[in-house]
């Protein structure tokens, strides 16, 4: 396995340029299902929104916000997580959200490492809100709970 971030020769190390040593690399591709392709298309759409898309002075989703959100999705979603929705803000931010299995989970990406995460439990009427910079453990627990609830519903 190898970290695919160095694919395509875009690496911060310039070592291969002069030492003459060539690495033997293996790349592994993971596939998450049909909605993964849809999500990629959605990101592309959001970063290309025209100015004024919201009827006011809305701007497209900022590239680094989209990149961070994509990284987050790629890193923290459990394997059986349902497809999220992506909603742009007028200011270049975006929100990742799910409304499934009796949970509303919303991750408002205000910037890289600047996320307001909210969960509402429809059954207990309980709301949790956390500001997250780098540690998404609690959000992962939320997503696990939502995904497991979905698996239980399917099994029933």
């Amino acid at each position, binding site marked *: 396995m190898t970290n695919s971030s160095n694919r395509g020769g875009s690496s911060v190390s310039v070592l291969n340029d002069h030492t003459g040593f060539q690495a033997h690399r293996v790349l592994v591709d993971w596939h998450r299902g049909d909605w993964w392709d849809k999500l990629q298309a959605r990101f592309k759409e959001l970063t290309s929104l025209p100015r004024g898309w*919201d*009827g006011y002075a809305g701007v497209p989703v900022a590239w680094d916000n989209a990149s961070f959100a994509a990284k987050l999705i790629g890193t923290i979603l459990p394997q059986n997580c349902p497809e999220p*929705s992506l909603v742009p803000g007028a200011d270049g931010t975006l929100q990742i959200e799910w409304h*499934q299995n009796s949970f509303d989970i919303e991750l408002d990406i205000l910037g890289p490492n600047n996320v307001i995460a909210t969960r509402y439990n429809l059954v207990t009427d309980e709301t949790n809100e956390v500001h997250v910079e780098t540690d998404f453990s609690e959000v992962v627990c939320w997503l696990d709970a939502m995904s497991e609830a979905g698996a239980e519903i399917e099994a029933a």
Partner: protein
Amino acid sequence: MLCPKREQKLRLPDLDDNGDVVPHDHDEIQNDDFLIRRVNPKQHVVPDDNRGCRRISSKLFQPSSAENGGMSVDIKPLIEGLGEAPEQYVVTPVFLGAVEFSVDVARGNNLRVGYDPLPDNECHGEVWGSNRPNRFSGSQNKALHRSCRWLVELDDVELI
């Protein structure tokens, strides 16, 4: 339907050194006035399996996160004062949906409602938070979301 034209102008707001409107609560905007928020059917609508519908995202009711950023609105009485129909005004030039809510709901939840005329929209206003102009709390967001009603309804889309 055109509304009878009535002169309605608001006092212009103070500007900061960058020429941006300073967040404020405008005393000439009445509590029983309505504010319009435009809705893009492609961007602001999400599927909601919990409620079995498609509905408006809470993101619609968040302000810009820029310093002193607010949530853009159209001030309904100003549109009417131009002799224009609000439901036509807000869907021109780009067709969008629109919801409206009363100023009272905003102020009752500790939000500020101000005037911010733009070159292409003299009826433009902003809603700001009080402690943090550029962020509404969860309860403020919910209050706006739950109190709004359609002005230009989108087919098969619920408010919440």
